[in-house]
């Protein structure tokens, strides 16, 4: 067995874990939307891509790299608004009219949405690869060198996740969302407009995906199909962590990052993506609902 330099190993692990956590943002979006509306948005990767593109445009034409974090926030806002519009047009009717098979409808519509966005992106931005400048110079965690962008993206992710957590637990809206996830009819009788909640939840969910896209834009090149890899990672995370469980998503994201980097170090680095997927299949076979239990909605 090859002796591994412990520095190299730690570098790999940290790097992997960081990426895993950032993808968790996206998975968080998927889970959050699922929790409120009980649908899977198959176009999350495309919102990720849009977030990345918005960020690119903002920092190259408007703000400049130093204000990259503002760019991330603005991208999130932009995608949030887009998400609300999409939800109002396409998803909301699911709950009002007589759509009988909701899952089938949601799957068809969100897959088509993904196709739509991807191709619009090719038309709009061309099939080229864009690479926004890095956000920060290379730095060191303790003594380990780490890419500057990844470092600050990591910090950004932690900030966003913490804000999201606080939002859910401490604000009125957050508690309303928690209530909706547990008992949709119940909060309606409490006088809350569920449709408004749905719309905002969708907006937040896709905004999180956009954040991931914006944060990772300099790391992984921007092109119209860059969303599909993100979708894949996002789904891997929610399968592993369990749909509908927020702590599950976090753990799964870290776990995924860890497994991928370990696999890359000890086995073959070119099959990096495969290890996570194998892990996913193992989880699916043993415990199809993921590592964490999904809390059943009461009503």
């Amino acid at each position, binding site marked *: 067995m090859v002796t591994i330099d412990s520095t190299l190993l730690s570098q790999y692990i940290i790097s992997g874990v960081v990426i895993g956590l950032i993808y968790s943002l996206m998975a968080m979006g998927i889970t959050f939307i699922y929790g409120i509306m009980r649908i*899977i948005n198959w176009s999350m990767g495309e919102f990720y891509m849009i977030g990345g593109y918005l960020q690119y445009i903002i920092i190259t034409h408007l703000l400049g790299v130093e204000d990259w974090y503002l760019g991330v926030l603005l991208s999130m806002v932009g995608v949030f608004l887009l998400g609300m519009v999409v939800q109002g047009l396409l998803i909301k009717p699911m709950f009002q009219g007589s759509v009988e098979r909701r899952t089938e409808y949601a799957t068809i*519509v969100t897959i088509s949405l993904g196709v739509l966005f991807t*191709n619009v992106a090719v*038309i709009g931005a061309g099939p080229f690869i864009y690479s926004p400048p890095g956000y920060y110079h290379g730095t060191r965690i303790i003594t380990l060198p780490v890419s500057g962008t990844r470092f600050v993206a990591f910090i950004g992710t932690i900030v966003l996740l913490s804000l999201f957590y606080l939002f859910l637990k401490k604000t009125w809206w957050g508690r309303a969302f928690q209530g909706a996830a547990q008992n949709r009819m119940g909060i309606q009788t409490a006088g809350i407009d569920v449709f408004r909640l749905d719309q905002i939840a969708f907006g937040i969910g896709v905004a999180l995906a956009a954040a991931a896209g914006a944060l990772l834009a300099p790391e992984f090149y921007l092109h119209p199909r860059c969303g599909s890899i993100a979708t894949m990672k996002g789904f891997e995370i929610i399968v592993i962590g369990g749909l509908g469980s927020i702590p599950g998503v976090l753990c799964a994201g870290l776990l995924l990052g860890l497994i991928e980097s370990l696999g890359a170090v000890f086995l073959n680095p070119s099959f990096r993506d495969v290890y996570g997927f194998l892990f996913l299949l193992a989880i699916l076979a043993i415990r199809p609902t993921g590592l964490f239990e999904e809390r059943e909605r009461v009503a």
Partner: protein
Amino acid sequence: MKEISYTKITGFKWYSLSIAALLLLVALLPFSTGQYYLQVFTVAFYYVILASSWNLLAGYTGQFSLAHHAFAAIGGYTSALLVTNFGLPIWLGILAAPLSSALMGFILGMLCLRMRAIYLAIATWAFAESVRITISMTYEITRGDLGLAVPKLFVGKGQGVAYYYLFLGLAAVTVLMIMFIIRSKMGYYLRAIRNDEMVARVMGINTTRWKILAFMLSSGIAGIAGAFYGHYNGLLTPVMIDFNEMAFIVIMVVIGGIRSIAGPLIGAILIELLTETFREFGEIRMVVFALAVIAIARLYNEGAMGTIRQFTQWISRRKQAREGVN
């Protein structure tokens, strides 16, 4: 008294006459077009097979699987590898293909038996991705992204016409077989399962058996189609297991009319024709298709077939009203 389901087309005579006319047109096509469109239609017939078999599982039985393209790939690669590595005659490879894809369909079906719709979608998606990754990973055998060269079924002059009629025949057989199934008792059971699985069980339907059967049938058909495709195209690449292929199938079926026999047929041919005819428009094609699917789904329309049905029913109602007045 004839059993007329409101989901069927009224005016049976006109319907079968127009089908016969279309069939005639289609059968005579090779005498009027060049090589290019011959190939376009051949590929269109391939998609007819995929779309119809997916519709059986997803549209009629309600198992919205996102792994259909993977079964075509499994069939294709199985046949190709058996023929190139073990020297099997092509027809034997083609026979072996549905065995392997139906077996995988069986396994996937068993895994998904108790899954709710959302988990079924995710699990089948994961399955398809694993197949894709496996094929890419085992590039020593499958030649991965470079593509696997596959011995062709027909060679030489006139092969274009031969392939055309081959795929036309396969597509016709598939559509007829599925029509036969849907009109049989099995068709009732599958539709019942989709409508309300619990009630279906309470009515005496062994939902497990029929769901697995639906999985195996649809994956078997996809597998054989994939095998034929490989021996037609002469090359197999993992592009056929890209998620886009699955999206394509969904688009075709939705636009043509999910839950109808002719829907996938119309959808596949229409979309493939439009895709090729407007090739120079590039991505706009997909944008238009995606918007069409969204519009159709949003307006609760059952695609092209749904519109045709509504039209014929409107006509027959007007006819009845007029006769009633008399």
